[in-house]
């Protein structure tokens, strides 16, 4: 089983941006994955006006990384906005999973957070387990076969037209890869 550590924008993408919570639920309760979250990420997703649509599933299927206040480790290096979204918490939890020799995927949609990993924790970056939401959708289609190709393309098209922060060209590139896999 692979541990998945998504940032808040991953959840918000399904709940608010494309209004397809059913796809998120499908991922959360899939036996290939164990989703984990931290305090800051959870706080941010509970602010969603549509959180109620997934609340039960998040309570049931998302484990809370709870021993420590992981978000404090990297707080001085990130902006208040980034801290609110919990990007730094994803990095801290991923690092602990790396130390614990767990197989994990970190989902980070902000370039700045990915750049931070690349510069400061190259050992994490080199493992190739850091990706964005659209990259994870491709993986769920092409490797784990959780989504049919048509389903994945449909979700990616919705993301492309939504307010989710990503370049259209980047989504198109992923769509092409999904079609060819």
């Amino acid at each position, binding site marked *: 089983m692979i541990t998945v550590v998504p940032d808040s924008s991953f959840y918000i993408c399904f709940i608010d941006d494309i209004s397809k919570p059913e796809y998120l639920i499908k991922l959360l309760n899939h036996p290939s994955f164990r989703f984990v979250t931290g305090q800051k990420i959870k706080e941010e997703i509970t602010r969603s006006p549509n959180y109620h649509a997934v609340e039960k599933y998040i309570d049931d299927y998302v484990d809370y990384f709870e*021993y*420590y*206040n*992981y978000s*404090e*480790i*990297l*707080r*001085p*290096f*990130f*902006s*208040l*906005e*980034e*801290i609110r979204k919990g990007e730094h918490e994803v990095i*801290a939890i991923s*690092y*602990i999973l*790396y*130390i*614990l020799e767990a197989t994990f995927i970190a989902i980070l949609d902000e370039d*700045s*957070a990915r*750049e*931070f990993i*690349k*510069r*400061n*924790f190259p050992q994490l970056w080199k493992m190739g387990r850091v990706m964005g939401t659209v990259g994870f959708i491709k993986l769920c289609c092409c490797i784990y076969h959780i989504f049919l190709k048509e389903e994945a393309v449909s979700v990616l098209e919705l993301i492309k037209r939504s307010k989710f922060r990503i370049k259209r060209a980047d989504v198109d590139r992923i769509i092409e890869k999904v079609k060819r896999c």
Partner: protein
Amino acid sequence: MKPEELGELEIIERYIILLLGVLNRPIPSREHLQKELFILSRVNPKISKYITFEKHYEGPYSVDLAEVAENPLYYPEAFQVDKNGRLWLTSKGKGIYDEIVRRYSEDKGFKELLGVMKMIREVYERLSKEELLFLIYATYPEYRSALSDELLSTEKRRYLAEALFKKGIITRKRYEELIGSDYGGS
């Protein structure tokens, strides 16, 4: 000295040994030791029961920690400090570290604690003393002092924020926040 105080000092010495043991290199300065354990106490507030950080000229500072780092009572030959404040584990200290790790090897919380310590050392030891103090003052305004006024002055703030951004250790948004005119710390 009361027995309970001795107990607390032993715990502080153990934290120093663990922090030194997670990476096979010295902690670069006394300031790094103080601030790394301060960050650890923010991550794991239970540590605040044993190490009390007070507002000091150089930000959050624990007198007990400073004392036991120089003159350990329970593990007198476990670590050494040189004249520049660099701290490292002796071979005896490495043995004590291995023994503590072995004793708690089945404890998930303990394993995570070692991971947290390692992460703190990896990232905070990329900072010079000045950069370290600057970021601590900027992030924890409750520990600001006369020195922080100097480090947080507009000119110095811009200089340090640029250096940190070039190093790739702060994000662009954090850089913009640190040099911003409405800056008030986080």
